[in-house]
């Protein structure tokens, strides 16, 4: 198995705060990694470092085979990132929004309908402006925006938040299917997702580094 994400003693600083304090982590292709930890443990920063949005200032970091210390933009087009925020334009219609996101990652606009159906988004709301949707519906739109890009690496920050039980199950199904077809998934949550944990491995973070990792030797 090839490593999709590999961090060695990685230190990241945002502003003047060390968000990652010497983190070691290896994630192989096809894994579904669940990162646990309390608020402020550095989980979000780990995701952002994987996406190349936060630079690694010392140690080694490679994502999808790209050295993040050389060019942290390189792997981005293969990555789907869902942060705390949904990254939605509240003044766009649902469909318009996903078509824009699809086009901006070089995917076909025709995949939009499939993605929206996959996340179980009611068809009568496809033209409604995002600003008037509920939190759960927005989350679904955000997930659909990732789906159209068919990312090789999914980085999800509390993906189950704001979703009801039914939608959580649905999301788990989507993620499991993605991983069987070769994608790698890292998701972060400080609670257990509520449904059966789909993760193939669970690691714990604290103080900006991994403190428990069954996969580490």
């Amino acid at each position, binding site marked *: 198995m090839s490593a999709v994400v590999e961090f060695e003693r990685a*230190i990241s*600083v*945002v*502003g*003047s*705060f*060390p968000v990652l*304090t*010497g983190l070691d982590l290896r994630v192989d292709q096809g894994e579904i990694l669940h990162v646990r930890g309390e608020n402020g443990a550095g989980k979000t920063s780990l995701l952002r470092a994987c996406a190349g949005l936060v*630079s690694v*200032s010392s140690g080694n970091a490679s994502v999808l085979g790209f050295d993040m*210390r*050389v060019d942290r933009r390189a792997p981005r087009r293969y990555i789907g990132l869902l942060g705390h925020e949904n990254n939605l334009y509240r003044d766009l219609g649902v469909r318009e929004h996903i078509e824009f996101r699809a086009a901006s990652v070089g995917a076909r606009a025709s995949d939009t309908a499939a993605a929206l159906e996959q996340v179980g988004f009611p068809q009568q709301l496809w033209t409604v402006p995002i600003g008037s949707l509920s939190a759960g519906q927005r989350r679904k739109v955000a997930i659909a925006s990732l789906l159209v890009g068919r990312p090789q690496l999914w980085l999800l920050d509390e993906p189950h938040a704001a979703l009801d039980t039914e939608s959580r199950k649905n999301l788990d199904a989507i993620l499991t299917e993605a991983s069987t077809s070769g994608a790698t998934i890292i998701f972060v949550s400080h609670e257990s997702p509520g449904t059966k944990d789909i993760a193939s491995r669970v690691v714990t973070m*604290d*103080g*900006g*580094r991994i*403190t428990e990792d069954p996969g580490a030797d």
Partner: protein
Amino acid sequence: MPGANSAAKMTATPVTRVLGVSALAATALMAVLGLIVSPPDVIQGEAVRMLYVHVPSIWIAYGSFALTSTSSVLFLRRSRRRADQGRHYDRLAGSAAEVGVVFTAITLITGMLWGKVTWGTYWQWDARLTTTVLLFVTYLGYLALRRLPAEPTVRSRRAAVMALISFVNVPIVHYSVDWWRTLHQKASLSVGRRPEITGEMYWTLLYSTLAVTILATWLIIHRYRVIRLEELRDEEGLEALIASRLNKDVGSH
């Protein structure tokens, strides 16, 4: 760049001390020469003494801004390859810009006072004055941008890009303002017959420039060192923060 190299090395205390003392002595002598020894001008009278602070100031300001631009270009070139490289160029750019702003302010104030006695007005919409004010505001903006809280590399890059744009913009501003005035102003108040600068006045001006240059160099070096110290302080704070996060980590086990 050799300039940056030597500037960095000159932070050594003996060198800056000597430089500081010479700056002090040189400016004192400059005051004696400019205020007492040099003769009043035939046309401008005593007012000509303003020349010795006004003209060197603007030269130093231009020089500093040029230094800011060069270091910014070098910084961008360095940091394109690796984000954590070329920080010294960024420091040099920042310290030179600040010194440049101080000297631009002095130029403006002395210029306005001088204008009052020679032209009878503090302000004239003359190309040079207008450009200088815009230059002043531009670099004030640059300094404001540098002070914003951000990740160091991001802040430095942003500042470097702005320095570059500002530098490109200076000739555009100057050209357009110059053209504006020459097109529409009936050659009126402008000083016009600027007296020939000769003899003692010439030497005094030259000497003043030298003195102010020494002072500015000393200032830039010191400012550079202060920026470096600020960074060291931040880094030290960082180590402490990492340590405290790890201690908490150890404690939880």
